[in-house]
């Protein structure tokens, strides 16, 4: 009877490990979706100068070309925005918040810090995988 009870406990133990892993998997999936959405936004911002150029060509207004000059505000903004740091920061914050939300389901397990830590590591790995950060 005792060994049967222990076997049951071990099964519960396995269940906890699997649920922890599945939650991290869930965070990974959500962060990937978010990353794609964010990347889509970046692409949209990068298209804007092209639209300005088109405007300059179509309306024959030389002022529009100012947007494309080397020291223009839009290019500086764009360069800053496309750099890796904001992407890392925002994606990490979002995944950390998601991990914290997952805490509601982890009350008994007290492994929240591991989930947050792992989510951050996963997101960083994801960014490396997508080529945002070069190693």
């Amino acid at each position, binding site marked *: *009877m*005792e*060994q049967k*009870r*222990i*076997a049951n*406990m*071990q099964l519960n*133990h*396995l269940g*906890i*490990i699997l649920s*922890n*892993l599945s939650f*991290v998997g869930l965070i990974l999936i959500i962060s990937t979706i978010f990353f794609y959405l964010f990347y889509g936004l970046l692409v949209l911002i990068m298209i804007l100068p092209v639209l300005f150029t088109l405007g300059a060509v179509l309306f024959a207004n030389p002022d529009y070309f100012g947007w494309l000059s080397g020291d223009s505000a839009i290019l500086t903004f764009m360069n800053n925005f496309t750099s890796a740091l904001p992407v890392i920061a925002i994606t990490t914050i979002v995944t950390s918040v998601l991990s914290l939300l997952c805490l509601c389901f982890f009350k*008994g*397990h*007290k*492994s929240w810090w*591991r989930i947050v830590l*792992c989510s951050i590591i996963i997101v960083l790995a994801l960014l490396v995988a997508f080529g945002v950060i070069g*190693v």
Partner: protein
Amino acid sequence: MKNLKVKITGVGKQNYLISIDEKPVQLKKNSFGSYEHDAQTEKDSVNIKIKTVHEMNSKYWFLTNIFFFIISIFGIFDYRFPKRCLSNSFETNVKLANEQSEINISLLPSQLGRPCAEVKSECEVQEVKNACEQDLVALKRMKTLRITKGILWIALIIAGIVLAFTTNII
């Protein structure tokens, strides 16, 4: 035939093994969160044993724990066992005077060297054992496991460094 209604409160998340007259019993949870069991016997007294079981007392404790350690990515997603390995052990003999008797056992929070249960009953109760002790076997096994896990972590770090240097990542 005499009837004894056993009511146990304060079970919480602890894993208790309960036996009446050496036979393990399955208790039913009532609407108030306490556990109940109706025991029937021809004898004049009933022996009730309650004890906690620890996962480390398994036959294959080492293999299963190493398996859990590996699948939880080197223990990152594993949960920690309580460090002190406290084990509650309670045994009592209840003398049944009437046809219908009742015994209420409230289990107390585990504290080393303190009683683990309180008994309330109209019947004559003779406590055989009521103590919270350290499970030395589990404690020793946990120590062995901790050392093994440490060695595995060191091996992983060494393997990572060697792999990083041989594949020119760094």
